[in-house]
């Protein structure tokens, strides 16, 4: 900071407030204020569609209601198993693809771009066109499955045992490229001298993979899974358009249920309490995950 005040125009301090101010103000107004508002409403019996009716303070009643409702725990289970399977599949396939792409064969950049395409698409629109692919009468997916293994007629979206897999397949198709890209970045950051040293020490390829490649790519993989985990915990658009939470509530994820309570039943107080609980859950798990991740990195 050798340069100071000698120059014309605003001082650095003024410029820094001028530059940061708008961003912070907008975030406060459109992000923090609504969140505080939601927390406030979660303690009332407010209904957003009943204008003019003064909401009353009801204490922790909404929270107790949410936590005692068995249906809520079912939604949480649906969400948890959706997250478990999508993250597991995306970790395995994504890492595998990244390892293959790291062999730097010809045309690998173009292929990377093509593989990445699904994650650039609108999740809601993706959801719609997969309902067509999954159509039990005319769907391409059903045709291909029957071509390889004759299952006869089956309905991926209409059956409550298959529907959870239907959304897992689409999410994996769409988001595996994300894990792949992050892992690829990790693989490319491993310094070559490590492998050279291992080669000098006569370590086998397999040993090199276990002791060099895997540990260096692991932090990247975990980071990718953190991002995907947060996104899939909030998952709404793709699943709404694909199954709309059904059949019954077989694929009704937490966010979909939240939307129903908030925008169809207009139970604003109750749904705000649910939203706050979801929010605390995601923050809690996220924090623990980051701590574990940092421990692994330090090792």
């Amino acid at each position: 900071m050798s340069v100071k005040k000698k120059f014309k125009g605003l001082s650095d301090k003024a410029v820094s407030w001028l530059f940061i101010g708008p961003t912070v103000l907008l975030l406060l107004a459109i992000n923090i204020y609504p969140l505080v508002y939601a927390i406030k409403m979660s303690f009332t019996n407010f209904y957003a569609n009943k204008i003019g009716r003064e909401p009353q303070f009801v204490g922790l009643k909404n929270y107790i209601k949410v936590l005692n409702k068995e249906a809520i725990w079912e939604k949480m289970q649906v969400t948890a198993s959706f997250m478990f399977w999508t993250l597991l599949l995306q970790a395995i396939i994504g890492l595998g693809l990244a390892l293959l792409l790291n062999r730097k064969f010809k045309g690998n950049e173009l292929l990377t771009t093509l593989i990445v395409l699904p994650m650039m698409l609108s999740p809601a629109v993706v959801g719609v066109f997969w309902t067509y692919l999954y159509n039990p009468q005319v769907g391409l997916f059903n045709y291909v499955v029957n071509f390889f293994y004759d299952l006869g007629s089956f309905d991926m979206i209409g059956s409550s045992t298959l529907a959870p897999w239907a959304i897992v397949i689409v999410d994996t198709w769409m988001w595996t490229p994300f894990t792949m890209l992050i892992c690829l970045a990790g693989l490319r950051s491993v310094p070559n001298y490590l492998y050279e040293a291992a080669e000098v020490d006569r370590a086998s390829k397999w040993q090199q993979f276990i002791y060099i490649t895997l540990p260096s790519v692991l932090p990247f993989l975990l980071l990718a899974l953190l991002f995907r985990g947060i996104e899939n915990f909030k998952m709404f658009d793709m699943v709404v358009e694909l199954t709309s939470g059904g059949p019954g509530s077989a694929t009704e994820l937490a966010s979909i249920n939240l939307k129903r309570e908030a925008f169809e039943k207009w139970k604003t107080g109750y749904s705000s309490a649910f939203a706050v609980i979801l929010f605390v859950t995601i923050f809690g798990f996220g924090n623990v995950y980051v701590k574990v991740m940092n421990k692994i990195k330090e090792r």
Partner: protein
Amino acid sequence: MDTSRSYLEPSSFSKKMAAAIIIVYAVITLIPISWMVMTSFKNVDSAISYPPEVLFEPSLEGYVNLFTNRSRQSQEYLDSLPPPENWYEELVRSREMVITGPSKFLGRYSNSMIIGFGSTFASVFLGALAAYAFSRFRVPLKDDLLFFILSTRMFPPIAVAVPIFIMYRKLGLGDTHLGMIILYTVVNLSLAVWLLKGFMDEIPKEYEEAAMIDGYSRLQAFFKVVLPQAMTGIAATAIFCMIFSWNEYAFAVLLTQFNAQTAPPFIPTIIGEGGLDWPAIGAGTTLFLLPVMIFTIILRKHLLRGITFGAVRK
């Protein structure tokens, strides 16, 4: 980045194997997208034939249906009409229908454009200002502020949708372009600040100091020296913001209805007789996905860098 790999270079056989597996995966992963594009060029009957038709007679029925509203008429009425004036009227007539007017698709599509470009511009501009300040100045509580900006991205949209809904209703911003532009700008801001700060950090601060010694003020130096230098980063960030706004669904479906609704909530509602009109949905999907696919392929270098940026940096 590329260092010489003497004996570490994978063997040519293992390279070929890897390439083969990747090609198979790429083909499989592209099938759903290609299928939707193909469906957009089918007619209604061949879209619902089984087994699915890979070879078919191309038709523009899907696109005609996407852009028009139609109503079914009796044969006598159709006979009483003057002959069709153009090919699309003829196509609709052959289905015993008449065109009653344009559909809402074009309006929804242009809403997507206006809101997408508006919010992208705003978030990149504001993001660049904040990123520059964070990159160059000693800002009090810098790390806390940066974390605060990032953490706003973790909120589930539905959790803040009700308060925003109520707030917008009071301010008269509900179902308006301006309201959606502000909302998407804010959602994108955190990403824009974080990405752009990384790019700004890479520009040597000697550049603008030299300009300031030549008599530029700090603001002039920022706009005339720093911004042009940061163009690559700005382009990458803009693509991300654009893709988010273009694809966003939850806020659009909850906060807009008639005036400012974008295409993602509209496309699923295209209904033909007796169910969803698949060629028309295919056409809408294709037109909607096209810009993103072209962007992705043309700007792939910036994009791939942007995606992996956060990970590499940490």
